[in-house]
């Protein structure tokens, strides 16, 4: 069982993901609405997470949030893996390449 921290501003989507994770993965999921707020980043220092997921719309400025997370994660003793889940019409390779060059995976939600 892993401990996952999900950053998702969309409450409906968040609940959907939470129930899905519980059913399929049995992992412990902690949710936070904002990805760059100091409170959310402080969570990273208080608990040991195995995976961070940022859920965002592909036309949003998700790069900024992801970079803020990466900066926080780099200060941790046992940094978790990072994943970015994008929603929206755009599904080109640019975001995947952006993530690959910075050490995290980007996937598109259908």
């Amino acid at each position, binding site marked *: 069982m892993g401990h996952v921290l999900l950053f998702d501003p969309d409450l409906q989507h968040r609940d959907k993901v939470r129930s899905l994770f519980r059913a399929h993965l049995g992992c412990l999921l902690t949710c936070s609405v904002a990805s760059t707020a100091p409170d959310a980043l402080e969570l990273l220092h208080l608990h040991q997470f*195995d995976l961070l997921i940022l859920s965002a719309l592909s036309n949003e400025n998700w790069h900024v949030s992801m970079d803020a997370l990466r900066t926080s994660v780099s200060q941790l003793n046992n940094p*978790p893996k990072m994943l970015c889940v994008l929603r929206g019409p755009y599904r080109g390779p640019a975001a995947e390449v952006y993530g690959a060059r910075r050490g995290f995976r980007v996937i598109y939600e259908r």
Partner: protein
Amino acid sequence: MKDNEGLQPLIEAVAFALAAQRQLVAMGPHFIVVHRFHRPGTLCVQGELVGGISVHGDLEECRISLSSTALLILDFFCRHQRRYFSAQRAADVMNNDPFVIRHASNVRGYRNRVGTLTPASVRVYIQRIREQMAEAFQRVGLNIDPSRVLVSEAGESNVVEFALLASREFIHLDD
């Protein structure tokens, strides 16, 4: 259930990432050491050439760009994985290690340019190895500080000891 079909890639990616993270925490990153000019029936013996060392990420591997001496030092720590050596001890052991002394002697015409190592040079090379490791880790998506992989710990009388806390495998090539 149809509503959740779009989230199937996410479930798969999360399951994969959690498994990879568990392995990383338990074993450390995975290094692949290539020994070239190996003689059949032997493994990691004198005469072989350290052809390269790469780190394996989740999906790809990346070569750590190092000079031949730095490669030999990292190879030494890979062969003595999870064992602590002070810079003095590492230099002493390497200067008397047949693998290092007769490095690449199986290669016709190859001149071994690895001179006598001193504790100070070992420390400098370890620093350089960490710098190159950091670049390789970043390229394969590992958010790890290299000083937590090639660790240094202060032992008795403030002597700093080094060790490689990682998993490794050796690949032997005949040429």
